[in-house]
C-alpha cells in the first residue's frame, strides 16, 4: 500500500494592533462597538476620498518581517486588487502585489516529541513566500433573509503572510500557529486572538506518495477559527484525500469550509480558474520608501525573539528544555525569570521552579499577566534568599508570594510585621513539642505501638502551635528524642 505524506501551507492574516486604521484615522478596534460606528468617508469609500498611509502599520509589519528573517524592501508599492463584494466599499482592496514590503523569510519551528514535556524531537524550517500589508474588508452577515454589512472592519491594517508548502502534518501546522501567535504577542504587533479574528488562517492541503518531489492539486480550507480547529480540519482533509486517492479518485482544487460545530468539511466552490483581480499600482499612494534611518529606528525596538531566548535560557542558565519553553511562553514572564536569576546568587533552576510552580499558579488564580504583578523579581529573590538563609521556612516563603501580591507590601516588611521569621529557639520549640505530646496521650500510645506514620501528624500539631514558624526538621528531631 502506498504511503502518503501530507503537504501543507498556511495563509495567515494578521491584524496589526494599531490605534487607527491603515488609511484613515478611524479607531481600528471595534470589538466592543456597535456596527458602522468607526467609519468615515475614507474607509467607506465615498466618492473623492484618498487613502493616507498609517506609518505605525508599516513599522509593525517591519518588525514582523525582521522577526521572520525576511528582507525589508527599501522601495515597495501598494496595488489595487479589484473585485466586487458588498463589504468592499471601493470595489478594490488596497494591497501589495509584486513588490511587497518584505521578501523571503522563514521560521525554524521546533516540533515537540509526543512525551508532552516540550522536548524537541526535530526542527522544521518553514519558508515564507509572501508577507505584505493590506487593508481589511468589512463584515457581511446574513440575517433574516437580509444581507447586513458592518463597515467597522474596513481599513483595519493586516499583514498577509503565507508559508511555503513546508508543513508535513496537522500537528506541525498547529505548532506553526502556536509559535506565530507567541511571536506576534511577543513583539507586540498583534493581540493574535484567533477567536476575535486577529489571526485568521486558511490551510492549503495536498498529499503525495512519500519520497515524491512533485506537488499534487491542493484544497484550500477556509473559516478555521482556532488552532484546534486547524488541526482537526487538516486531519480530516488528509484522511479524505488518502481515502479518495486510494479509491482511484482525483483530488480537485476545491475550496472547503470548516464547520466547527459538526466537525465537518463542506465544499464551498470549485477553483478551476484563478480570479483575475486586475492588479495595478495604487495611484493614490506614493511608493513606500523605507530608508536606513527609519529601519534602524524601528528595528531597535525589536526584542530578542522567543525561540532564541528559549535556546539561550537552556544554554546560559542550564535549564531543562521543558522549563525554558514554559518560561519563554510569553515575554513578560521570561523577563521576570531573567531579572530574578540575575538578582539571585544561587541556582537558576531553583528560580525556575519557584516561577513555574508558585508564580505561574498565582497568575492563573488571579487571571493576570506577569506585567500586572505587584510582586517584582527582587521580591521573589528576597523570599528565596530568606529561605536559603534560614530566616523563614519554605512554606512561609510560598505563602509570602501571595501575601506580597495581596497586601502590596515587600516580603521583608511582611516577615517583620506579621512575625513570620522561623523560630530557632530550641527551648521554645521543645516546650511546644512537650505540650503537644501531653495533650495527646492516645496518639502517643498508638505511636509507641509502632504506628510511626503518626510522626507527621505530631509535627503538624507543633507547627500549628508555633504558627508555622518552627523549622520542621528541628521539630521532628526533638519529637523523635522525646518519643524514644
Amino acid at each position, binding site marked *: 500500500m502506498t504511503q502518503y505524506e501530507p503537504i501543507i501551507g498556511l495563509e495567515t492574516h494578521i491584524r496589526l494592533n494599531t490605534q487607527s486604521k491603515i488609511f484613515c484615522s478611524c479607531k481600528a478596534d471595534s470589538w466592543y462597538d456597535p456596527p458602522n460606528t468607526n467609519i468615515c*468617508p475614507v474607509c*467607506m*469609500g*465615498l*466618492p*473623492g*476620498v*484618498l*487613502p*493616507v*498611509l498609517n506609518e505605525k502599520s508599516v513599522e509593525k509589519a517591519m518588525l514582523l518581517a525582521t522577526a521572520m528573517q525576511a528582507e525589508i524592501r527599501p522601495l515597495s508599492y501598494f496595488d*489595487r486588487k*479589484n473585485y*466586487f463584494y*458588498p463589504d468592499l*466599499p*471601493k*470595489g*478594490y482592496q488596497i494591497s501589495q502585489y509584486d513588490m511587497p514590503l518584505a521578501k523571503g523569510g522563514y521560521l525554524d519551528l521546533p516540533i515537540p516529541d509526543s512525551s508532552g514535556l516540550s522536548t524537541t524531537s526535530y526542527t522544521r524550517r518553514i519558508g515564507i513566500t509572501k508577507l505584505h500589508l493590506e487593508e481589511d474588508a468589512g463584515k457581511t452577515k446574513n440575517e433574516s433573509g437580509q*444581507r447586513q*454589512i458592518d463597515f467597522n472592519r474596513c481599513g483595519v491594517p493586516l499583514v498577509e503572510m503565507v508559508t511555503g508548502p513546508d508543513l508535513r502534518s496537522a500537528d506541525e501546522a498547529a505548532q506553526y500557529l502556536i509559535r506565530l501567535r507567541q511571536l506576534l504577542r511577543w513583539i507586540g504587533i498583534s493581540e493574535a486572538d484567533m477567536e476575535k479574528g486577529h489571526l485568521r488562517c486558511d490551510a492549503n492541503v495536498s498529499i503525495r506518495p512519500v519520497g515524491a518531489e512533485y506537488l499534487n492539486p491542493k484544497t484550500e480550507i477556509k473559516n478555521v477559527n482556532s488552532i484546534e480547529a486547524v488541526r482537526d480540519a487538516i486531519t480530516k482533509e488528509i484522511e479524505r484525500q488518502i481515502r479518495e486517492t486510494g479509491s482511484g479518485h482525483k483530488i480537485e482544487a476545491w475550496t472547503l469550509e470548516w464547520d466547527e460545530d459538526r466537525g465537518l468539511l463542506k465544499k464551498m466552490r470549485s477553483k478551476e480558474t484563478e480570479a*483575475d483581480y*486586475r492588479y*495595478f499600482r495604487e*495611484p*493614490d*499612494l*506614493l511608493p513606500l520608501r523605507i530608508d536606513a534611518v527609519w529601519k534602524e529606528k524601528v528595528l531597535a525596538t525589536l526584542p530578542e525573539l522567543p525561540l532564541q531566548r528559549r535556546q539561550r535560557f537552556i544554554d546560559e542558565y542550564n535549564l531543562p528544555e521543558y522549563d525554558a519553553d514554559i518560561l519563554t511562553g510569553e515575554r513578560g514572564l521570561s523577563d521576570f525569570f531573567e531579572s530574578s536569576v540575575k538578582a539571585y546568587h544561587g541556582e537558576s533552576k531553583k528560580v525556575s521552579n519557584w516561577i513555574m510552580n508558585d508564580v505561574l499558579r498565582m497568575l492563573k488564580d488571579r487571571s493576570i499577566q506577569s506585567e500586572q504583578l505587584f510582586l517584582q523579581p527582587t521580591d521573589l529573590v528576597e523570599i528565596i534568599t530568606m529561605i536559603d538563609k534560614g530566616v523563614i521556612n519554605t512554606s512561609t516563603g510560598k505563602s509570602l508570594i501571595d501575601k506580597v501580591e495581596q497586601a502590596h507590601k515587600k516580603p521583608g516588611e511582611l516577615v517583620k510585621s506579621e512575625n513570620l521569621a522561623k523560630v530557632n529557639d530550641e527551648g521554645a520549640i521543645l516546650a511546644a513539642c512537650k505540650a503537644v505530646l501531653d495533650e495527646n496521650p492516645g496518639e502517643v500510645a498508638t505511636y509507641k505501638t509502632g504506628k510511626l506514620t503518626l510522626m507527621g501528624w505530631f509535627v503538624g500539631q507543633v507547627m500549628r502551635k508555633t504558627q508555622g514558624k518552627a523549622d520542621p526538621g528541628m521539630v521532628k528531631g526533638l519529637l523523635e528524642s522525646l518519643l524514644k
Partner: protein
Amino acid sequence: MELCDLPAFQISEMVRRREVSASEVLDSALNRIQLVDGRQGCLDPGSITDEDRKKVHAFISITTDKARAQASAVDKKIAAGEPPGALAGVPISIKDIFCVRGTNSTAASKILANFNSPYTATPVNRLEAAGGLVLGKANLDEFTYGSSNESSAFQPTPRNPWNTKHVPGGSSGGCTASVAAGEAALSLGTDTAGSIRQPASFCGVVGMKPTYGRVSRYGLIAFGSSLDCPGPVARNVKDVALMLRIIAGSDPHDSTAAVVPVDDYVAALEKNVKGKRIGLSPDYFKITYPVPASDSFQQQAIPQDIDQTVQHAAEIFRQMGAEIVEGVPMPNTRNGIPAYFVISRVEAASNLHRYDGVKYGYRTPGELDDLRTMYRKSRGEAFGPQPKLRILMGMYVSAAQYSEQYYMRALKVRSLIRQDFDRIFDPAGPYHLDALLTPTTPTPAFEMDAVYGDSVMMQYADQLTVPANHAGIPGISIPGGISSSGLPVGIQLLGPDFSEANLLSIAHAFETATTNEPWRSVKPQVLQ
C-alpha cells in the same frame, strides 16, 4: 460692465475697501445667471427648446442660500474689521466633480444624482476659507469623460457663450462657460487630459492645469487618479494666479499632494520675459491619428488660423525680448492619446467600482434576491454610455492576459513622453527651454452634435493637451485670438514641474502686450 464682469482680484479689493459689499457682488452674479443661464441641467429635461439653445446652462445646481450665507459672513467680517480673505466676495463656480458638504455632488451622472456629500473637497474648502462665494455646481461630461460636455446625464448641457450652437468644450465646460458669461469670476475645474485647457480655449478664458500634486485631489471624484489635476479658470491671468495660490499646497488628506512651498504667483507676474527661452515644436502643429488597419499614422496639419495665432504669440514674445527656439522635437506626442486611452481607462474602471448601489447613489428599484443582478441592473441603468465604454475598455486592457501588451506598454509610452519634456526643459540640455508654446486645441469649438458619438475623434481634441498630464507638468491655456468663425482660439504654454509662477508670468506678459489688439474687445454672443 457690471460687478460680475470685473476681475476677481478687483472684486475682492473693492469688497475689502468697502466700496461694495459681498452681497451686492453676489446679487450681480445671480442676476447674470438669471439672464443668461437658462434652466439648469436635470435628469429628466423633456425636449430641448429654442429658448434652451440660446442659453449657457453652465450649472447643474445653484446653491443660492449657501452663497448668501457666505456673502453675509464676509460682510460681517469686514464690518468687524477682521480679514475677510484674499477672495472676499468673489463668485465662484465649482465643477460638479468636487464633493461639497451638504450639496448634491453628482459627477453629472445618474448614478450619483442623489449623492449628498458629507464632506468638502480640500480645494473648495480653501476657496471658501478665503472668502469666496460658492454659487453652485458646474455641469461637465459624465464623470469628466468627454471633451464637449454633451455626455452629461444632466440636460440641457452647457453651450458656448460665444456661439450657443457650439460646445463649450470639456469636461470642465460648465466652468469655462460660467466664467466666459460673467456668471462666475472664478471656477474650479479638473484636467485629466486637457479638461481645463481645452474648454478654456473654446470659451476664450484662462485655464491652468497645475503640476500633478500641486493641488490636492481630496474630494475630487476620481477619473484617472494618476492624471487628474484640479485647477483654476478665470478671465485673466492674474485671477488664475490669485486662485492657484489659494488652492495649491500639501494636504494631510492627500499623500500625492506635493510638499513643495507655494510661490506667490501674483507677485511673480511682474517678471518680464526678456531672455526667456520659449520653444515651438513642429509635433504640436499637426494631429496624428493611428490607422490600425495599416499599422501606420495619418497626419493632418492644424487649421491655418490656429497656426497663425500661435505664430503671432511667438512674435509678441520675440518682440518682448524672449528667445524663440524653433524645431524642438517632441517625437512621442503622437502616442499621447493611445497611451491615455489605456491608462486612464484602467484607472477609471477601477475608480468606478465603488458605484455599486450598495452604499449610496442609485440602486435599481425593487427587491432582488441576487447580488450580481443588483450590481448589473444598478450600474446598467445609471451609468451613461461614456462610463460604460471606459469600464469595458479598462477591464479589457488590464486583464491578466492583455495587461502586458496594453497597460504595461502604455506606461512605457508615458515614460517616453515624460522624457521628451525632460530633455527640452533640462537646464543643462540642448534646449534648456523655460516653456513650450503650442496651440491648445487643434480646432476652435466645434458645433454641438458634430463630434459627439465618435469617442475616438472626441478624444483627439485632447492630443495637444494630454502630454502634460502624462508627464505631470503644468500647462496653461490663454486666449490668443479669434478665429475666422468668430470663436476664441487659445494658446498653450507648458513648463517643467512646479514652474507655475514662470508660466503665469509669461502668460501675463502676453496678455498685457495684447491688451489693445482688436480681438480683445469682442464680447461673447450671450453678452452682446
